[in-house]
C-alpha cells in the first residue's frame, strides 16, 4: 500500500513496562507473530491516516535488551518519534525516565518527538505514580503525555497517532527537513522528488544530531 510519509518510531523504557504489549496492541489485536526461524519474530508497522494523508508508522522495539548497553546510536538514529514508557504501578520505572531521556537526547536527532507514556492505567488499584507526576515530568521536559493501557487498549491508538500528528505538524512547520532521512521520516514512493540513489557510507563520527 502506498503512503505519503513513513515515520520511524522507537519504544524505550524499563523492562516489563509493557513496551511490546503496547506495540502489539497497536499493530494488531488479533496478532499472529510472524515467526520465521531465519528472520526472527517481528511486529511493528501500521498505516494511519492524518489529514487525509496515509502515513506508515514503522516501530522498532528492542524489549528484552534494556540492560544491554547496546541500545545506543544505531537504535536511536533516524527515529522521528519515541515512546518513552513507564509503568504506573512501579515507581522505579518512573524514576529511570531521566536516564532514558538523556540517552535518547544524546543519541538522536534533536527534533525527535518524544511522548511520555504511563502504561498499565487499568491497574488503578496498584497505582504507584500519580498522573500529575507524569504530567509534571512531561511539562518540564517538553514531552507529550498520556496514560495508556495496553491491556484494555485505552489510549493506545491515541498515543501512537498523537505522536504522528506532532511529527506531521513539525513537517508542516518546516522544522523537520523531510529530505534528511536522518530525521526518521521518509517520503512515500510516489512522493519522492528524485530517484533514490544508492546509499553510500557516511563518516563514522558524524550523525544526525546530538554531536558536538
Amino acid at each position, binding site marked *: 500500500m502506498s503512503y505519503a510519509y513513513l515515520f520511524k518510531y522507537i519504544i524505550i523504557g524499563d523492562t516489563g513496562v509493557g513496551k511490546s504489549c503496547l506495540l502489539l496492541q497497536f499493530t494488531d489485536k488479533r496478532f499472529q507473530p510472524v*515467526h520465521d526461524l531465519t528472520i526472527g519474530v517481528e511486529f511493528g508497522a501500521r498505516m494511519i491516516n492524518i489529514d487525509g494523508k496515509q502515513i506508515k508508522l514503522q516501530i*522498532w522495539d528492542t*524489549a528484552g535488551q534494556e*540492560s544491554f548497553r547496546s541500545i545506543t546510536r*544505531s537504535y536511536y538514529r533516524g527515529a522521528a518519534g519515541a515512546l518513552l514508557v513507564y509503568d504506573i504501578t512501579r515507581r522505579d520505572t518512573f524514576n529511570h525516565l531521566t536516564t532514558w531521556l538523556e540517552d535518547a537526547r544524546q543519541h538522536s536527532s534533536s527534533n525527535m518527538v518524544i511522548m511520555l507514556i504511563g502504561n498499565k492505567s487499568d491497574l488503578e*488499584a496498584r497505582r504507584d505514580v500519580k498522573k500529575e507526576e507524569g504530567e509534571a515530568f512531561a511539562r518540564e521536559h517538553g514531552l507529550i503525555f498520556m496514560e495508556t493501557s495496553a491491556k*484494555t487498549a485505552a489510549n493506545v491508538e491515541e498515543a501512537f497517532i498523537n505522536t504522528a500528528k506532532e511529527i506531521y505538524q513539525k513537517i508542516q512547520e518546516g522544522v523537520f527537513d523531510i529530505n534528511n532521512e536522518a530525521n526518521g521520516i521518509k517520503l512515500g514512493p510516489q512522493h519522492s522528488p528524485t530517484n533514490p540513489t544508492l546509499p553510500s557510507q557516511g563518516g563514522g563520527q558524524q*550523525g544526525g544530531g546530538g*554531536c558536538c
Partner: protein
Amino acid sequence: MGQTQSKEDFSPELYLRMNSTRAFRASWLRKEGAMKHWKEEKENGAIYNVYLKKVRYRHSVPSIVEGATPEQNSGLEWETVKVKTIKAAPLEKLAEHLPVALQEMDSSYINIFFCTYQTFTNQMEVLKILLDRYKNHKIGNLSKENTQKNIRSVILMWLDENLDDFREPPNYPCLSLLQDFAREVFDLELGERARRRMDFFKEEAKENEMSNQLAFQASMCDEVDGVMMDNMFMDIKNVKSGLLAQQLTYMDADLFRKVNLQHCLGGMWSRRSKKIDSYHDVASVKATVTQFNDVSNRVMTTVIEDKTMKPHDRAAIIKKWIEVAQVCREMKNFSSAKAIISGLQTHPVYRLKKVWNAVPRAHVLLFEDLASIFMDDNNFEMSRELLMKEGTAKFACVDSPRISRKPILNLVRRLSHEKATGHRREQARMHGTVPYLGTFLTDLIKIDVANPDTIGDGLINFEKKRKEFEVIAQIKLLQNAAKNYCINQLSEFVDWFTNMNVMTYAECCDVSDEIAGSTPSSSPMFSTPDRKGSAFRRFFSYTAEDTTKSHRSSSSLSSTSSTGSAGSADTPLLEDGMSFSSENSPATSMNGGENPRLRRVEMRKTTSGVKEKEKLVRKISASYSMTDLTQLIVPEKHKTPEPFPSSSCRIIRVSLEGSEGNVYKSIVITQQEHTPSVIRTAADKHNLPPEENLSEFMLVQNLPMGELHIPDNANVYYAMNTNAEPDFMLKRKPPPGAVIKRNITKSRRTRKSWIRDSHDS
C-alpha cells in the same frame, strides 16, 4: 553525511531485496516442512491440533498410516500422514504425555517440555505427577510395564539433560524425593544416580564458597597500589589484537555455555523484576549481560580515562579496539564484537570528532562495516543472517562481498594473518560461536507477548511453548558450537579486566565534555538536567585508590552545576533499567519521600560537589541512588483535581460491593452509555458468574456525603456527579423496605480508605 548513511535504512531496493528473500524462504519452508493444519480436536480436557503432512513415501518401510497397505502404495511417491500435537492442556495432561511421547519416539515433545515447563510450573510438581503415575500406572492406553519403564526413562533423561533443574541448595528436595522413591520401588540405579547428583552439587557448592572467600581476600589485596603496574594490558594499544580478542572470547564463551535456557524465556526474563522466588532467578542470563556491559565500559574507559592524552594516542586506542572487534567477529564472537562497537558508539567516545579524524581511514571504514552488522535495521537482519550462516560453521567467512573496499580488505587480511601466525595457539583457529544474546531475548519476549499463556479454561498453551522452543533450540545449538574454542585463559588478562578502574557512563560524559572543549554535549533543544546527579549515581565496587583520574576541574564543576540547577530528578540506576555497572555492586535505592535525612546528605554533596566525598563513597563501594521528586510534584494546593480528562468519554472506577480492599475496575463510558451496559461491563470485569441476574444489581456513585444511586436506565455520563471522584460501586438492590443507612456508613469507610491510599502513594 548522516544523511547519506541513513538512506540505507529506507532504501527501497533494500526492502525489495529483503522481502523477496523472505518470501523465497517462506515458500521453501512450506515445501519442505509442509504441515497443513487440518482441524482441532478436543479430547479428555485437552485440545489437539491435527495436521496433515505430506511425506515422501518410502517403499522399504511399512507405512503407519491407517489403511495403507503396501499393494495400494506401490507407485506412490508421496503420502499424507496425520500428525496430532497437543495444543493446550492442563499441567497433569502435559506431564502424563511425557512417557507417551517417549513411546511414540517423539523426543521433541520431551525437549520442549523440559525447556519450558518452568514458565507454568516447577520441578517438584512435575516430579510428583510422574512418580504418582509410576505408582498408579494409569496413563492412557500404555501398559503397566511401559508406563513404568517410560516414566523411568523420562526421569533419567531429565536428570541428564537438565541438570540445573535439580540444583536446589541447601536441601535438594527433588533429588531427596527421588532417592526416597527409588528406595521404595527398589530401583537401585535410579537411587544411585540421584545420590551422585546430590553429592556433585554439594561438592560444587562447597567449592564455590571457598573460591568466594579467596576472591574476597584477593579484592583486599587490590587495594594495594601497584598491583597492576607491570601488567602488559595496561598499555592496551600495544597488546596484540588477537590476544585481546581471544581472552575476551574465552570469558564470553564460558558464560554463554552456562546460560540456562529457561532463563531466556520471555516469561522469565521479562518478568524478572517482579518475581522474587528463587527459581525465577535469571542469574545465568544476567551474567552474560554484565559481561557485555563490562566490555563496553572498559572500551569506553580506556579511550576516555586519561584526560591529558593527545588525540593521536586516543585514536590509537580506538584503532586497537576496532581491530579487536574485527578479530572477535572473525572468531565468531558476536557478543564482544558488538560490545566493543557499542562502547565506541557511546556518546562520550563517538562525539570526539578530532580523535576520530586521527583514526586511519581503513579503520574507520572497518568500524562502519562492523557497526552495520549490528544495526537494528530490519529486525537485525544482518546479524541474524550471519549467525545462521556461520553459527555452527567452522570458520567465519570474513572475505564476504560486503567487504569489497580495498583498504578494509587489506586490513582484514593483515589482522587475520596476525592472529593465525602471531600466536603459538594454532589450534585456536577452529572457532566456536558466541552470539549476541539480546536478539534472542527480544524474539522470546515478542513470542511471549503475542501468545496467551492459557487457552480456554486455563489450559496451558503448549503451542506457545513450541514456538518458544524454536528459538531456544537455536541457542542450544550455538551453545554446543561454543565448546569449539580452544583458548587458554591468561591470569594477567583476568587481573587487568577485573581490577581495572572503570569509569561510569556519567563520568565518561563529563571527561568527554572536557576533552571536546566543554561545548555542551547534547542538542540545543535539551537542557541537560542531571549531570550533577549522574555523577553520584553509581560507583564501581572495586576501585583502587587513584588521584589523577576523573578529577573534574573547577570550571567543569561550575558548568555542570549550573546546568544541573535547571534539572529535575536525580535518577537512581537500578540494574534493570539502564544498568551500566556490574551487578555485584549492591545498589540501594530509596524513594525521596521516605528518607529525608539521606536526601539532605545527598543534596549537600551535590551542591558542594566535593570530590573527596565521592571518592570515599567509591571506596566503601556503596552505590547511592535516590529520588528527588520534590521538584517534580506539583504542590498539593496548586493542583486542580481533574478526574475527567476528556469531554467525550470518562473513566469511572467501579468496585464490587462486598469485595474486600480496594479492588476496582476502570471503565470507559461514552456519552451514550446507559446504566445496564455499564453494569454489564462492570460485572464482566469483576468476573461475576454469568448466571447472575444483572437486573438485581444497581450502580451507585460514592460521594462524600453518601451514595448517589444512578437510575436503572439513565445515561451514566450525564447522571453522575462530576464534581466528585468517579468512584462507583456495583451492588445488589436492597430488598423492598430495607434500610439504606447501613450503606451510607459503608460508603464513608471506603471513601476514607481511598483517600488514605491516595495519600500514601
